[in-house]
């Protein structure tokens, strides 16, 4: 759903770079635009850009603005912006599709029923919705490699709970505001703990320290608590039984 009234805007972020924003609400279209635009600019290999990233609605280009003029770079980014409607752009190729086993509900994910109720669904319906959804890594953040996955249906526009759950474990799937977050590490949170995986989002000493990338797609398959325990006993690589396929 695109917010037609929003014109992309380019702003400076301190002296650290330029931010190109595609929406003032976290919509799926704005996120697709941010990912596609970042990829297009990266493809041009500008020497001024030290690195880039994308957030829920923006692409960020890290540029030393004490060496390179903001106005010049803004003009050059504007030219690329004007070449197409970025919210309708196709996502970059070479992205991965991940299939990640997780337990839904029960002692390992105690807030599934609560989240289902907030979404106006039965527990089984909620679990079906969570495993049927093909989600996209909207952005990585808050902790290294930690994905914010979207976008769930409108029913899942459930608010964060008022109080924090003091310690939701690494590998947890938590839900709020039509997104699922998969925790890198134990985290206090107001998001509801609906599932539990053994997938490590950050593997600092492995060849793939950050298994997920923005734009990757993720689906969850339901396993029993016993099956998850089995996965956890043979999980030295942190992959948690996940399967990775490359999207064409």
């Amino acid at each position, binding site marked *: 759903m695109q917010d037609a009234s929003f014109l992309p805007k380019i702003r400076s972020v301190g002296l650290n770079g330029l931010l190109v924003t595609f929406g003032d609400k*976290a919509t799926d279209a704005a996120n697709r635009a941010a990912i596609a635009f970042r990829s297009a600019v990266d493809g041009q290999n500008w020497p001024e850009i030290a690195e880039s990233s994308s*957030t*829920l609605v923006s692409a960020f280009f890290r540029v030393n603005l004490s060496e390179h003029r903001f106005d010049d770079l803004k003009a050059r980014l504007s030219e690329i912006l004007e070449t197409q409607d970025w919210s309708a752009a196709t996502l970059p190729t070479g992205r991965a599709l991940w299939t990640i086993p997780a337990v839904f509900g029960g002692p390992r994910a105690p807030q599934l029923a609560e989240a289902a109720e907030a979404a106006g669904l039965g527990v089984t319906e909620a679990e079906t919705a969570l495993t049927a959804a093909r989600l996209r890594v909207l952005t990585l953040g808050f902790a290294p490699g930690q994905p914010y996955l979207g976008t769930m249906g409108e029913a899942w526009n459930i608010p964060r709970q008022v109080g924090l759950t003091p310690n939701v474990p690494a590998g947890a799937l938590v839900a709020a505001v039509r997104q699922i977050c998969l925790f890198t590490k134990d985290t206090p949170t107001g998001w509801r703990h609906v599932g539990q995986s053994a997938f490590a989002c950050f593997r600092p000493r492995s060849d793939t320290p950050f298994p997920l990338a923005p734009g990757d797609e993720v689906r969850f398959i339901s396993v029993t608590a016993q099956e998850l325990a089995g996965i956890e006993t043979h999980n030295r690589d942190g992959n948690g039984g996940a399967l990775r396929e490359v999207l064409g």
Partner: protein
Amino acid sequence: MRGLVVIKAGPAIALQDLGRPGYLAMGLTRGGAADVRAVHEGAALLSQDPHLAVVEMAGTGGTFEAAENLRVALTGAVMTAQVDGSAVGWNASHALPKGARLTIGPTRSGTYGYLHVGGGFQTDPVLGARATHLSCGLGALIKTGETLPVGTDKGKTVGMTLGPEPRLDGGTVRIVPSMQTSDFDEEIRHRFEETEFRRDPRANRQGIRMDSEGEGFSNSKALSIVSEVIVPGDIQITGDGTPFVLMAECQTTGGYPRIGTVLPCDMPRVAQAPAGAALRFAYVTLQEGAAIEARAKAGLRALPGLVTPLVRDPAMMQDLLGFQLVSGAVSAMHSPLDEG
């Protein structure tokens, strides 16, 4: 093994360097030393590459023993320092012969002191850097009994000093407007500039809370924003109107609006301000900020040329022959980057 034995570690000392750039998209912030200028000062004193790892010491240091002849330099927050019981100067380089003990006591001014060794600390890099990033599980605090490996030292000169840029007691910090600055009413921005803040004791390498009397700085327009990129130096205003300056280990994104961003060259002043120190924020335009920052960067590159021999009180010189005051002395003409 070339190394520095940690006889007694202070409670918050850890290896740092200039951080791990390149992982913003993956949600990993750059991290690295809180006072980047101090890292460059130490490198200039030892005539070596500023990318070499150093020990960052918050509040107090510890006791260290050289496993073989080493050169050391001390920069950043001024702490008491002794080699085998004799006081040695801060902002200077010293010989630490094999078996000698360096004792670094509590800060006298500032917050983060730095211990540099000739050749740098050579732990195994993780993701391209040696910087400790506790909240991300990269590295750990240095513990009593450890031996920190030290790289090959190509330099010989010690007994050098460098007058540091004053930055240890708060003061005025320059900021540029940032992405949400215009969402704050003019009145709030004006009051923000006019307010004298105190550095709250609630501060760490992720962020520093700024206290002030009177009303907070929240702005209804700026309350409900989508989470957006954070860079170190961003000043976020939390829901109750309190400013936090985000530091080297801040997260990569955040949902609180930013009223401005501290110039990178003024971040050491924020980092070093001790609890209770007065700080003010002054807006400069993006163009002014860029010019100030460019001059500061040039200043960092010029540091090696500003190093001078330490003028010593002969009464304090126990081992004159142990110091090579001339050979390898740096000049502004030759390359300061003596790769470790």
